[in-house]
């Protein structure tokens, strides 16, 4: 068995195992680490396929940027908000397994029975060496055949950044008083499983006591209930009570 085949099998095995680890890990941080391992191995695969530039991009962009971003977000998200691992919907779980198996069979059959239709191109290893290597060759393709797509991609990235800023920017007013005028009603199950007046759904209006002290910065977590833009209130849930209730329902979520 040639060396390259042996190396391929090693890399492939590691990456598949790492991928399984991503899916199976209880703790999202573990998932992220597994994903890093998987992506590094995929970079190795790219090297084997003669795509050195892509391998570097894979390492820098995926493992270096995206996954670090994921880890940042993981830190931003309160662990209490994370769902439990074991609480998955059974239907999804069984159907997911069946679909995965069927798809694997189908794709396997497709790969085995496939016929090569595309003609051979000019980018033979000899030609690529002639222009100075993989990076130069890819650069020439990108800036000639795919110039327009390349420019469009820059636009897409700009828009993506703007969108991310717009979405993630904290609403200053809302952050300060805990309520934002005109907020969409997000009557969340966790918000409503506490004892609430009948008002939030709009059946009876909630009377706001004007003398009631405003919630301040370090106020406990609160559920925002807005039935219409002009009438809004915050119900300050008892943090300990709601936390206890959540722990009852979510079980081992903190262990994830």
């Amino acid at each position, binding site marked *: 068995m040639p060396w390259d085949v042996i190396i391929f099998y090693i890399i492939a095995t590691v990456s598949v195992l790492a991928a399984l680890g991503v899916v199976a890990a209880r703790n999202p941080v573990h998932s992220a680490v597994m994903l890093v391992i998987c992506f590094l191995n995929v970079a190795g695969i790219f090297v084997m396929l003669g795509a050195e530039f892509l391998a570097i991009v894979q390492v820098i962009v995926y493992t270096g940027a995206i996954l670090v971003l994921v880890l940042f977000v993981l830190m931003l998200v309160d662990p209490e908000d994370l769902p439990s691992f074991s609480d998955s919907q059974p239907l999804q779980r069984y159907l997911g397994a069946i*679909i995965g198996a069927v798809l694997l069979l*189908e794709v396997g059959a497709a790969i085995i*029975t496939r016929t090569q239709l595309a003609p051979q191109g000019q980018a033979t290893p000899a030609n690529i060496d002639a222009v100075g290597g993989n990076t130069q060759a890819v650069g020439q393709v990108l800036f000639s055949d795919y110039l327009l797509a390349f420019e469009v991609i820059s636009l897409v990235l700009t828009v993506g950044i703007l969108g991310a800023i717009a979405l993630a920017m904290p609403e200053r007013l809302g952050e300060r008083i805990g309520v934002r005028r005109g907020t969409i009603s997000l009557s969340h199950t966790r918000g409503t499983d506490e004892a609430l007046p009948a008002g939030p759904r709009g059946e009876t209006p909630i009377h706001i006591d004007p003398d009631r002290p405003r919630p301040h910065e370090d106020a406990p977590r609160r559920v925002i209930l807005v039935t219409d833009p002009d009438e809004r209130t915050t119900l300050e849930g008892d943090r300990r009570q709601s936390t206890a209730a959540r722990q009852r329902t979510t079980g081992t979520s903190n262990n994830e």
Partner: protein
Amino acid sequence: MEDLLYLIPLLPLAAFVINILLGRGFIRDNAHWVALPLVGASWIVALLVFLDVRDTEHAISQHLFTWIPAGDFVVDVNLYVDQLTAIMLLVVLTVGFLVHVYSVGYMHGDPGFYRFFAYLPLFVFSMLMLVLADNLLVLFVFWEAVGLCSYFLIGYYFRRRSAGNAAKKAFIVNRVGDLGFGLGVMLTFWTFGTISFYGEHGIFEQAAHHAELGIAGGALTAIGILLFIGACGKSAQFPLHVWLPDAMEGPTPVSALIHAATMVTAGIYMVARNYTIYIQSESAMMVVAIVGAFTAFMAATIALTQNDIKRVVAYSTVSQLGYMAFALGTGAWVAAIFHLMTHAFFKGLLFLGCGSVIHGMHEEQDMRKMGGLRKYMPVTFWTFLIGSLANAGVVPLAGFWSKDEIIVGAWISDSSFGKPAAIIGLAAAFLTALYMFRLVFLVFFGKERFDTEHIHPHESGAWMAIPLVLLAIPSVLIGFVGFPPEDGPFHHFLHHAFELVEVHHVSMTTTWTFGIISTVVALGGIFIAWLAYIRGAINPAAVRERFEGTYQFLYNKWYFDELYDATIVQPLRRFSMFLWKVVDEGIIDAAVNGVATGIAAISQRVRHVQTGLVANYALAIAIGMVLLVGVYLAAFSDLFQ
């Protein structure tokens, strides 16, 4: 003068635009200061054009713009003035201007004053364009436009239900006629390939030489009859006359201008304009003559029994229009236009006189509640008397000359219906004198039959009196333009417009004979009215009881309204109800609603698929992907080969 023709219709149009746009906010009760000068200026231009046409003896025209340039089918909007148009222009603008003046007094204080003085110039504009048109399509457009103005003005008091209904009736009955006219226009285009009147390939040139051009005479007959159906609607000829008496719901100046002097003569004008087609078809002429003669007689009999002062005059109008129509039908073209002109003046005068009486009597229209008004309103009385004498056809007032000429023209015509028409005309002339003087005696003579304690009739103000006097003058004198009979200046002037008509030379004996007969007939009618209503020698009530059946028949206007209601309106109504209740609600709406209900029911079930859970959507996508790859494997791969 050609270059100034456009001013004639433009000035009234400007008055309309100014008053309708600015009337409500700015002009309000001063609207007449916009309309009067502009319509007056238009009259002056028309007078200049008339003199120009009289001197040069040539038709003049002005090209305004090309309306429809569609390949071979070109419709130009041209203003065309020949002798016939020149007469019509003067008649329309003279009566129109005087009615404007009269309206200032009559409509004074009405909340819709500006509106009235917007519609009136709009009507004058449309009527002028109608007579100035040099092709059938433009004529048709403004034919509809005058109908629209008539609708506006009949329904001027739109808060009154009867006025609204009368306006609708006038509009709908006219639609029947306009359908005929529209078909006539289409058939004309189909037959001649053009709708222009004049020019080398114009309708008239082709109609005159239709035999050489291979155009069937039957087509000309059909065109003539179809166009006359339109004329029936507009000129209130049997069987489409029913709208005109109801149109008296409009303000009296409107009745005078539109429903007596000008618009209703549009049908007569249109037939006269197309005389080239009619003289080629004896059948079409015959239809026109019979309808006209019947209308003249029928309307006169109805007028005998009506008690509403305006309705009597309205039926008189229908009757006189019938005269014009049978004059057209018997080939007395010039006589018809002559009568059109004299009638416009004296009938306008009569209507304005009616308005003055109604105004003075505080909106009372029933003649039975009048009487002895002579001493209360002398100006109205004398002018009304002149109008009545002219209408009755008494020497030497305007109506005598024109009516006499129509009867003579019918008598000597080549048409086989000529002599019966002349006799019917004489009978109608007798009735005319009778009903006109019944009206005069009932209104102005005898004892006051109203409550003198509370009602104090008064003479109308100068705004209303002056037009009455100004219209009385031509009512007396205008007949002399047709003197001597068949050979007056009027005939020489109009001769150019009716070139193709053979001129009959009437012997002096015939002229004198008929002049004496019609005078005797008219005086006889007046005498009987005098006997019945002044002298008391004949008791009208006794006559009425003696002929109760006939009286009821006439009083109910020959039951035309009831007949139409039973044969047309009610079946149509039932059919519409069927379409509404069964077809529309039962089938169309039910189908639409059923589809909507069905979709709503299905959606109600299917909406549960939308769980709102992202995981379910992802699952659906995954299943779809599996199916897609499966389809690929089954259909396109070598797996099962």
